[in-house]
């Protein structure tokens, strides 16, 4: 059952992350939720690597970590920029579409 445990945990974290992406107003909070999602994916990889006895899972997880870090960096830089220009990082208020 250990494999299903890891996968279930990852699925749960993924769902929680999805909920966070949808529900959170603050841009930084959204980025945090995205981190949750990415980490759940990482867990999935590790679990699959453990199940299959191959090392590709680990390698891919490493890549994901690296990319996630880069993405957070750039994302936060953008959030900063938005904050400077619009004085707010609340996604509702940032929207200019009338729909």
């Amino acid at each position, binding site marked *: 059952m250990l494999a299903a445990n890891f996968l279930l945990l990852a699925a749960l974290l993924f769902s929680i992350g*999805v909920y966070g*992406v*949808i*529900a*959170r*107003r603050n841009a930084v909070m*959204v980025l945090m939720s995205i981190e949750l999602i990415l980490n759940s994916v990482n867990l999935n990889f590790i679990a699959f690597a453990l199940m299959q006895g191959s090392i590709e899972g680990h390698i891919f997880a490493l890549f994901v970590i690296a990319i996630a870090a880069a993405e957070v960096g750039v994302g936060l830089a953008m959030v900063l920029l938005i904050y400077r220009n619009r004085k707010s990082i609340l*996604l*509702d208020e*940032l*929207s*200019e*579409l*009338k*729909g």
Partner: protein
Amino acid sequence: MLAADAVKLSSGWFLENLWLAAFIPAVGYAFIMLFGKKMPNKGSEFGLASIAASLIVTTGAGIQWIQRVDSADKAAKGAGEEGLGLLQSLRSLPAAADGEVKPFIEPVTQTWVWWQNSGIEFGLGSHADGLSVLLLWLVAFISLLVQIFSLEYVRDDRRYTQFFGALTLFSAGMLVMVMADNMVQLILGWEIMGLCSFMLIGHWWEEGANSRAALKAFFTVRVGDVGLLVGTAIIYFGVEDWIAENPALRDAGFNGFSLEAIQAWALSGQGSSWVLVMGATALFIACIGKSGQFPLHTWLPDAMAGPTPVSSLLHSSTMVVAGVFLVARIYPVFWEGFNIANGGLSFIAIIGAITIVIAALLAFVQDDIKKVLAYSTVSQLGYMMLGLGTGAWLPAVFHVFTHAFFKCCLFLCAGSISHSGSHHSFDMKKDMGGLRKHMPVTFWAWIISTLALTGVIPFAGFWSKDEIIDNVGNNGYTFLMWVGLGGAALTAMYMTRATYLTFFGEPRGAADGHHDPDHDDTHSHGTDEEAEEHELDEVTVGAPLPKSLSAAANAHGDGHADHGPQESPKLILIPIAILTFFACTAGFANATPLAVGGSLGVELGEEIEYVKTYVEPRYQPVAIESMVASGPGESLVPYRVGFIEADANLSAEEEAGAKKKGCGFETPADGTVCFFPKVSHAVPTTGKILLSLAVVAIGYALAIGFCRAFYGRRNEKLVGLTERSGLASAAYKLLANKYYLDALYENVIVRSVAYPISQSAYWVNQNLIDGAVNAVGEGGKRTGQIVYDKIDQGLVDGAVNGSGTVASGTGEGLSGMQNGKVNLYGALIFGAAAVGAIVLVIINVG
């Protein structure tokens, strides 16, 4: 035993081409209407030329007819002594007085069948026998004189061309009728004349009175024309039944419309008496209307609203005698239908007698000179009908002949007076008087014509009218004879009155040189009759009459200088002079008192009774086989060969009883037909002549005395008599209102018939027809409304709008997705991914 042995009668080009006499004026009419306006004389040239040509044709036809009769009589005289024994089986008939056999002169007929359908043939053609030739010549002659008169009389009229056109067309129509050889053509001519009468009476239709008079004339005659059609139809079937039983007749060219067939059938004894009576009555009703007999005489006086040439041509000499002509033409029908043979009091005679008296009485209270002459015409027509109704065929026809001359002359004199004497007024009391000094020619013409009218020897009327009276008495109708004599006295009296008022006494009004400067005005009460509508129970004659019933004053302005009465120009006087000459001499064409009986001291023999010789049809029966005809539908039936009856000398007893034998009294033998009954001819005696002359003289004496007393010296016993005496005033009112007949016709009969009809027609129109139309419109409108509301606005627009709403609604609904909320975008992405994943799972696992 056929044609080879019969006598050949001479014919001639004019007799065979008699149709030209009617055709040329018809062509003339077309020319006038098409080209008349552009001609230098506005079309009157065509009219004169065509009538003159017609006169030439009819004169030639007359001469050739006389030759034909002479040839037949001569041959008969030559042959009769030996007796052509070939057809001796037929009964012998009485010879003429001197033993001479008078053969039946076959008429010269031409027929051209223009339509045939299921055995009925309609043909046009000419039928030349004595009666038609006489009247054709008369019509052409009088038409020519009247057209010459009109050249001056209607000069500068606003519708000069149409006037001549209508006159010419009328002449053509009457000629068509007179020469007709079948009833259909006769009716055709009859109706053309009616149409022209309408057109001409209403020539100055701008004045309402004139067009009303024209309509009255037309409709009154129309009431009678119903009888014409009914009678023709009844007789047609009777004749066809007779021909069906005797097929040989069909080969002779007889059919149900042919006049000869009708004559033969009537005398054949095989016509049922019911059919004969009904047919004769129906036809006579038409004659009542056309010839102005009581009770349909009311249109004739009003017809004086037309120009004087119209009155002189149509309503005195020619058109109104069409009824007399019809009776004379198919006389056997009336002879048998009304049983004139046996001396019964016939419908025709009664009507004629009534007409004589009532018209004469009405002539006393007229102020309009033309109306006096109109009533005189009605009265004289009554004489003609009286004669025909009592078996005096020849005097009646002769009276048509002489009456045309002097009556037309009287009318033309009236026209002359109005033209030059009373300044277009016909009112005797207002604008005439003492004109004999200024208009001598007219005056003498009038006097001679009046003497002719009243029957003073030796003028024309004496020889014809007194013969009527004589024959009436001779045929056993004593009472009617006295009526005729009384009528003669009345004629003398009212003509004297008119003469006195016009030519004697002090000049009044226009005759005096004054004329009312506002005589151009149209008055509100134009005719007596209209005035009657307003003041029915009052004496209306005193109401102001228009200066001229015919409003001729409107024809030209007051351009001429205001001069007094003077004699008329030559173009007017020449016809008057010619007619006066004939009024003097026409009587000698059939001067019976000079021919037989020695009543006037001489007895010149029957030869001088020219009309009797040449015009009166002979009463011998004719063998059917001798009538040769080409096949049906072929044209140009040549003149038929006459058949001469073998005759033996008769003994005295047979001769005495022979008066009641022969055609008209007995049925003809098998194989023969009769065309004319054996009418009797009275021999005038001195006593009767003196009686009639005395009656006329008494009339004259009374009238002259009265006129001098009343109009001249204003005798206080006579002046104002109608106001003082109740009887005189009542009588005067009755006459002035024309026996209230007009009121009866207009207000009672016409109103009760026409008013409901027009009301119901109006109702149908407004409610049914308009209702239907409105309903259609309403339905269309409602349908349109419904279509608009439900279908257009609802369905179509709804669909269009609906699609738009759906689109925009969808867009609006979906635009919620594009609200810029990133979170929502994320939700959508993940949701879509979830859905996709579910689908994948289901596909792969399920």
